C-alpha cells in the first residue's frame, strides 16, 4: 500500500480599490493509483468468503429467507375475495379496486425482492465449487435446495408479472440495463425441468429421513408438491393427478404424510394445525419458518380482535368467504341446495368447524391457550371493544376478525414465531381431487381418498357431508371441490392464484365486498349485508401486474408493459 498525502495552503489576495478577492485551497489529497490490498476485518470479501461448508450454508439460509414470507402470504390473501382491506390505503387494495398504476409500490417491491432472492441463489451456484473440502452429498443437497428456491421465486414472478427477465447465471450491470422479458411458458418449462431433475437426483432427504434439527429444510416431498402446484397453475391436470397420486400412494419413496389429527380432541384437529404446538407435524410438507422472539411476523396486529390486543382492524374476512362454509349437515347456506335449517339471523351455529378455526364472528367463543374462553361480540350495538361501530372506526368493518394463524403464545407486541405453511398434504389431496374431476368426473373411490378424509378431519359427521355425491354432475362436483379448496385453504395465500387459474376474477372480484348482516344497514340493499368496498376487475388487465414503472424507465427492453396499464 502506498498513499501520498500532500497538503497545500494558498491564499490569494488581490487588493483593487475596495474590493478584495479571496480564495483558499486548504487541502488536496492524492490517492495513488496502486490497488489497495488491505482487506476489511469486519466483513468478508469475495476472495476470503468461500472457504467452508458453513459459509455456503449461510448463503443458503439467506435464500431460505428470501423465498417467501408471512407478509407475502397475507398480501396474496388480500388480493383475493377472502380478505378485504378496510383502513386507509394498501397496495393490494388499490389493485383490487382497479386503481393501481405502474408506479404502485408493491409492483416495484415484489420485483426487487424476487430478483434479490434469485441473485442469492445464483451467487451460491456460481461459487459453491470454490469450496474444496465439502462432502459431495452435502454439496449436492445444498445445490438442489438452492435450485428449488430459485424455481420457487421464478414461479412467483411469472404468476405476478407473466413474462419476466430470466437468467440462470449472474448478470452484469450492463446486462441489467438491457435484459428483456422471457415468455412465461419458457420459464415454466425451466421450472418443471428443474423440479424433475431435483426429484430424479434424490439428493434431498424425504421427510422421514430429515433429522429433527433440520425441520424446515426442503425435502423431496416438497419438490413433488411444488411440481404439482406448478402444473396445477397451468391447468395441466394429468400431470397434477400423476404427481399427487404418487405422493399419496408411494409414501415410502416420497415421505409419509397424513392429515394432522389432534389426538386429545379430534374435532379440534384443523384448529390445532395452525398453532405453535403443532409445528412440523405430519401434514406439513414445507414451511416458511419463524422462531419466537428472533424471527417473527406481526401481521395479526391488523387482523385479530381488538380485545386480543390488535391495534386496528384493517384486514377483515368477507361475508363472501363466510358463506362458503357448509352447515354440519353438509349443505350450503345459499343456492338451490340450501340447508333449510340455516337461519340468516343465527348464521354461525351448526357450521363447518373450520369456520370457527378460521374466522371470528359475533358471539364467538374465543379459546385461550390455558383453556379458558372469552365471548367476542361484533354485532353493532353490542358495545364491546370488538363491536362493529362504523366504516371508519378501528373495529372490524365486516363484522369478522381473523383467527387462523393467531399465535396464542405471542406477547402484546404481536411478534409471532409461528411458521407459515407453504405446502401441506391437504393441498395435495385437494389438487388430486380437482385433477381427477377435470380429467373425467371424480369417482367414488377418488372422492373417498381426498375430499372425504379432509371433511372427516374437519369434524363433519353427517353422511351428506362425507359420502360421495353420486347424483351430482361433473360441473356441480367442480363447484363442490373448488369450494372445499377455498374453505380448507382460506388464509393461506392461495386463493388469488386459484381465482387466476380458474379465470373467475370477473365473477368474484368485480363489485362489492360485503360484511355481516348485523351492522345496522338497509335491509333492502344487498339483503342487509354491509357494503364494505367496491372492487373493479378488468379481464384484460387484472390477471397480471404491471412491470414496475421505474424499471421500464431504466430499461426500455422491458416494454411493452402488460395490457391495460
Amino acid at each position: 500500500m502506498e498513499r501520498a498525502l500532500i497538503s497545500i495552503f494558498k491564499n490569494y489576495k488581490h487588493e483593487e480599490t475596495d474590493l478584495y478577492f479571496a480564495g483558499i485551497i486548504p487541502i488536496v489529497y492524492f490517492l495513488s493509483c496502486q490497488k489497495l490490498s488491505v482487506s476489511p476485518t469486519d466483513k468478508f470479501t469475495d476472495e476470503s468468503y468461500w472457504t467452508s461448508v458453513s459459509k455456503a450454508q449461510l448463503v443458503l439460509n439467506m435464500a431460505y429467507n428470501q423465498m417467501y414470507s408471512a407478509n407475502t402470504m397475507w398480501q396474496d390473501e388480500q388480493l383475493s375475495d377472502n380478505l378485504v382491506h378496510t383502513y386507509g390505503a394498501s397496495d393490494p387494495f388499490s389493485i383490487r379496486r382497479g386503481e393501481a398504476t405502474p408506479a404502485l409500490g408493491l409492483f416495484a417491491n415484489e420485483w426487487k425482492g424476487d430478483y434479490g432472492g434469485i441473485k442469492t441463489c445464483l451467487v451460491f451456484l456460481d461459487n459453491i465449487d470454490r469450496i474444496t473440502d465439502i462432502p459431495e452429498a452435502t454439496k449436492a443437497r445444498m445445490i438442489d435446495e438452492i435450485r428449488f428456491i430459485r424455481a420457487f421465486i421464478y414461479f412467483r414472478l411469472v404468476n405476478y408479472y407473466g413474462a419476466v427477465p430470466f437468467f440462470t447465471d449472474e448478470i452484469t450491470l450492463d446486462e441489467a440495463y438491457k435484459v428483456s422479458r422471457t415468455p412465461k411458458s419458457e420459464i415454466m418449462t425451466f421450472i418443471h425441468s428443474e423440479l424433475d431433475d431435483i426429484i430424479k437426483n434424490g439428493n434431498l432427504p424425504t421427510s422421514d429421513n430429515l433429522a429433527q434439527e433440520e425441520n424446515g429444510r426442503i425435502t423431496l416431498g416438497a419438490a413433488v408438491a411444488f411440481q404439482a402446484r406448478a402444473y396445477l397453475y397451468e391447468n395441466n391436470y394429468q400431470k397434477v393427478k400423476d404427481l399427487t397420486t404418487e405422493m399419496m400412494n408411494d409414501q415410502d419413496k416420497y415421505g409419509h404424510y397424513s392429515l394432522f389429527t389432534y389426538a386429545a380432541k379430534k374435532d379440534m384437529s384443523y384448529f390445532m394445525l395452525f398453532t405453535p404446538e403443532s409445528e412440523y407435524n405430519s401434514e406439513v410438507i414445507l414451511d416458511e419458518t419463524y422462531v419466537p422472539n428472533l424471527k417473527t411476523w406481526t401481521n395479526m396486529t391488523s387482523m385479530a380482535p381488538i380485545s386480543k390486543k390488535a391495534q386496528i382492524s384493517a384486514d377483515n374476512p368477507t361475508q363472501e368467504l363466510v358463506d362458503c362454509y357448509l352447515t354440519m349437515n353438509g349443505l350450503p347456506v345459499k343456492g338451490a341446495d340450501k340447508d333449510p335449517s340455516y337461519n340468516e339471523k343465527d348464521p354461525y351455529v351448526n357450521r363447518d368447524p373450520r369456520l370457527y378455526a378460521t374466522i371470528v364472528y359475533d358471539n364467538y367463543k374465543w379459546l385461550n391457550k390455558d383453556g379458558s374462553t372469552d365471548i367476542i361480540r361484533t354485532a353493532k350495538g353490542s358495545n364491546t371493544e370488538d363491536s362493529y361501530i362504523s366504516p371508519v372506526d378501528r373495529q372490524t368493518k365486516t363484522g369478522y376478525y381473523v383467527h387462523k394463524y393467531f399465535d396464542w403464545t405471542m406477547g402484546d407486541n404481536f411478534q409471532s414465531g409461528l411458521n407459515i405453511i407453504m405446502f401441506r398434504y391437504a393441498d395435495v389431496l385437494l389438487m388430486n381431487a380437482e385433477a381427477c374431476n377435470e380429467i373425467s368426473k371424480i369417482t367414488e373411490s377418488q372422492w373417498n381418498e381426498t375430499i372425504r378424509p379432509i371433511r372427516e378431519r374437519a369434524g363433519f359427521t353427517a353422511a351428506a357431508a362425507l359420502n360421495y355425491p353420486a347424483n351430482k354432475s361433473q360441473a356441480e362436483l367442480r363447484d363442490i371441490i373448488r369450494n372445499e379448496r377455498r374453505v380448507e385453504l382460506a388464509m393461506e395465500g392461495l386463493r388469488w392464484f386459484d381465482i387466476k387459474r380458474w379465470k373467475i376474477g370477473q365473477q368474484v372480484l368485480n363489485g362489492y365486498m360485503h360484511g355481516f348482516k348485523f351492522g345496522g344497514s338497509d335491509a333492502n340493499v344487498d339483503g342487509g349485508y354491509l357494503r364494505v368496498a367496491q372492487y373493479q376487475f378488468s379481464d384484460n388487465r387484472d390477471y397480471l401486474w404491471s412491470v414496475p414503472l421505474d424499471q421500464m424507465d431504466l430499461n426500455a427492453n422491458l416494454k411493452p408493459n402488460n395490457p391495460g396499464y
Partner: protein
Amino acid sequence: MGILGNQEIADYQYFTTYTVYSNIAGFDNNIYSGTGFQLGSPDLKWEKVNTRNIGADLSFLNDKLSVNLDYFYNKTNDILLSPITPTVLGTTLGDVNIGSMENRGWEVTLNYHFKTGDFNHSASFNIGNTENKALDLGNPQIRVVDNVGFIQQNGLPLGAYYGLKTDGLFQSYDEIANSAIPIGVTPQPGDVKFVDRNNDGVIDDNDRYYLGDGFPHYNFGFSYNLNYKGFDLSVLIQGVGKRLQSLRGDIYMPFHNGAWYPVIFKHELDTWTVTNTDARFPRLTTDNSSSFSNNWGRPSDLVILNAKYIRVKNIQLGYTLPEKLVSKCGFKSVRAFINLQNPFTFSPNSFIDPESTEFDNLLNASGGNSGRNYPTLKFYGAGVNINF
C-alpha cells in the same frame, strides 16, 4: 478557489463484501444467521469540492453605512453515491464516483449606525439565497414517503417535490364527466381535481410535475438597537422569503385515517360541502373509499404548503439606573429589562411551525412531516441585572 476532499464515506466499498446477518433462518425453531453481499466498486476516488467565493466590503458616509456583498459557487464532483440501478440485478452497488452537483448563493449585509439627538441607532439587515442543483446524479429517483412524492433528477434541486398538480375541487357531476380522472376512481363533487398534464384524458403517473423544493430561500434577518440615556431597546426579526413544506397526518388531513386518530383540528374544518364549495379541504369521506384514495392517496401538491414566514424573534427593552444612584447602595450597575421571545410569527399557515421540515441535513426525507416537533416557545420575561 480550492478543491476539498470528503472522507465521510463508508469503508471497504471497493470490495464485493459478504456480511453475515443474524436471525435470518429458522430450522426446528433454532435461529441461524445468513449472508448478504454488496458488489464492489473498484475505482473509488475522493469526492472533490470545488469552491469559489467572491466578496466585497464597502463603506459609505464615514463608515456609518457598511455594505457587505458575498457570492459563492461550490461544485462537488465525483460524489460517492449508491447509484440507482435496475433491481433485476438483485443487489445494489456500493458507492461509486458518479455525482456532481452545485451550490450557488449570495448574501448582502447592510449595517447602519446613526444618531438623532440623544438617540443612538444601529440597524442591520441581511438577506441571502442558496440554490442547489443536481448536475449529474445518475438515474432519476422518484420516491413516495407517506404519500409525499420526491424526485432526485439532474437539473433539479435536491429535496424536490414531485406529484400531481391539483386544480381545485370538483363542483358538479358535469365537471367530473368533462374532466380527466385517475384510473378506477369514481369521484364526486367535493373531491380533488388534478391537472391532466399530457391531455390524454386520464390522470396517471405521466401527469406528475416537479412541484418545487423544500429548501429555504431568501433567508433574511433584521436587527435594530436603540439607546437613549439609560434606556435600551433591541428588536430581532428574521424570516424566509420562499420555501415549500409538506405535511402529512392528523395535523393536515381532517380525521387523518379515521380509525387511528379520529380527530379534526379547527384549522381543518374548512372541508367541502354543498354549502361550502370554496373549501380548502376536499369533502370528508371514509378512509377506505375510492374518493379518499383520490384525494389523499396519491402524491400531489395538496399536501405541499407555502412555508414562507416572518418571525419577531426577540424584543428587549431595558433601563439602566444612573450610576450615582446605585453606587450609593454599593452596586456597580443595575439594569432592569423585559424580554419577549418569539412574540409574533406571520406565516400563511398558522397551525404549523414554518421552520419544521421532513428533511435531514443532506436533504433526505425518511418520513413525512407530521408536525409533531416541539413548537417554538413564546417566552415573555423580565429581569434585573446587578453587578457588584
